[in-house]
């Protein structure tokens, strides 16, 4: 149920994002989802790609600081209140969302949202119990 996300540290300097996407592109890695968190000094680029291990290797070779984190991809019905139902279920169990971002592509009639929880396993159990559908990494990387 867990999905591998790679995170990359970037200084707030022009051209860094272009550099990373160029490295990934040249390595034939496809970006499936992304989010960029920024502060005044630095940013963290978070990516779901079709080949996380390879992306990790090529970026490290180029001197970037990279880490791999486990996140959860949840299918959200594309209608009003769809996301709210999920968040309420998590809230009842006091599970915190550290951050979340939407997937680039749809999965059937649904939207896919990537969640980073403080307690990943508990969140998965909660969502499963409530019959929310989560996507396997293998399916997601090649969506």
């Amino acid at each position, binding site marked *: 149920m867990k999905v591998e996300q790679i995170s990359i540290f970037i*200084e707030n300097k022009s051209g860094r994002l272009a550099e990373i996407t160029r490295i990934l592109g040249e390595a034939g890695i496809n970006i499936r989802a992304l989010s960029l968190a920024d502060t005044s000094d630095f940013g963290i680029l978070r990516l779901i790609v079709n080949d996380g291990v390879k992306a990790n290797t090529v970026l490290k070779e180029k*001197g970037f600081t990279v*880490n791999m984190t486990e996140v959860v991809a949840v299918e959200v019905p594309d209608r009003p209140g769809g996301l709210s139902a999920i968040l309420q279920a998590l809230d009842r169990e006091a599970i915190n969302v550290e951050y979340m971002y939407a997937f680039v592509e749809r999965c059937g009639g649904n939207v896919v949202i990537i969640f980073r929880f403080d307690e990943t396993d508990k969140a998965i159990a909660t969502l499963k119990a409530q019959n929310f559908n989560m996507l396997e990494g293998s399916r997601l990387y090649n969506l």
Partner: protein
Amino acid sequence: MFFNEEFETLPRQALEAVQLKRLQSTLERVYANVPFYKASFDAAGIKPSIVTCLADLQKLPFTTKQDMRDSYPYGLFAAPMDEIVRIHASSGTTGKPTVVGYTQKDISTWSELMARSFVAAGAHKGDIIHNAYGYGLFTGGLGAHYGAERLGASVIPISGGNTKRQIMIMQDFGSTILTCTPSYSLFMAEEAEAEGVDFKKLKLRVGIFGAEPWSEEMRNEIEQKLNLTAIDIYGLSEIMGPGVAIECIEAKRGLHIWEDHFIPEIINPETGELLSEGERGELVITTITKQGIPLIRYRTRDITSLTYEPCICGRTHARISRMSGRSDDMLIIRGVNVFPSQIEAVLVSIEGIEPHYMLIVDRQGTMDTLTVQFEVSEHLFSDEIKVLQALSRRVEKEIKDMLGVTCTAKLVEPKKIQRSEGKAQRVIDNRKL
């Protein structure tokens, strides 16, 4: 183990008798041969003959780096040029370099003191000394080289730079002793890791590190990463070069200064007043055997303290404490005195922070600002902003707690801070003072 047991363990009284005799003859010689000293003694109304005990030394005027610059290049030499066999010069970060000359006897003394230093650090005949101090005008390379030869060890004169080759040679030649700057040793460790070379598999036993101030925390880091015992050595070209003082491997507490050749004093750098044993201040050294360029009460600008307490190694020579910095490296930020080495100590005490940092000092309006750049290692990096921000806040708080100065901690990408193969550049001061 000693190189020259008789002199290294001379009882205090005998050592002081040697010092006085050598001091008196040095004073006679500089007064007769160096116009600068004749003029400065005359201006103070002093004749060399007034020095009848060691305490009289404090009646003499100081010699400063500026005096050396004013005498550029050969003005302070006390021996004629046809007796000078070697010339070195210190890096002139501001203006002209300071130039020093050595007679054959000076080279021989230096070699002996450096050999004594090697032995104090735990080296012996049969060691393979990997000398990565720069060879050239800088005294580090040749100073360590001659000392290693005098000791009878095998010296590899690799000099600084070309780190990949250094690592290959350490592996293939079986180097047992490493000599270089502490910052360069860490750079080597980093390169070795990138090359997949494990320092634990090398034969290195001891590293002798100097030429820039470093901290106890950095020592721990080096010892761990390079898997050796790290020894602090002190020297400056004006006085001789490396080997003026060194830690003994037995105690690793303070650096024995070879008192049969140098007389150390500690003064208040502001007032010039003599401080007592244990008090921190500027180190002042008088050379008492040098022929080429003897210096009387030379202000080193290095901040340390002095102790005459007996040492477990058996050497009777006084010890200076680890340098907390150069008085001219000292930054004054909003009225607070800050040594880069103090900030380094704070940084490396935090788990996972690499000892590569840069201090950027600026002035906004009338306020000084200090930015501490440090590298985000893989170990520290998190996908969560709040974790990284908490780390920066922690660095800021610890610096504030330890040094009393407010700063902005800034994470930068790994290897973005320039690595040095000699003396590390740690400060960029953009203030127009």
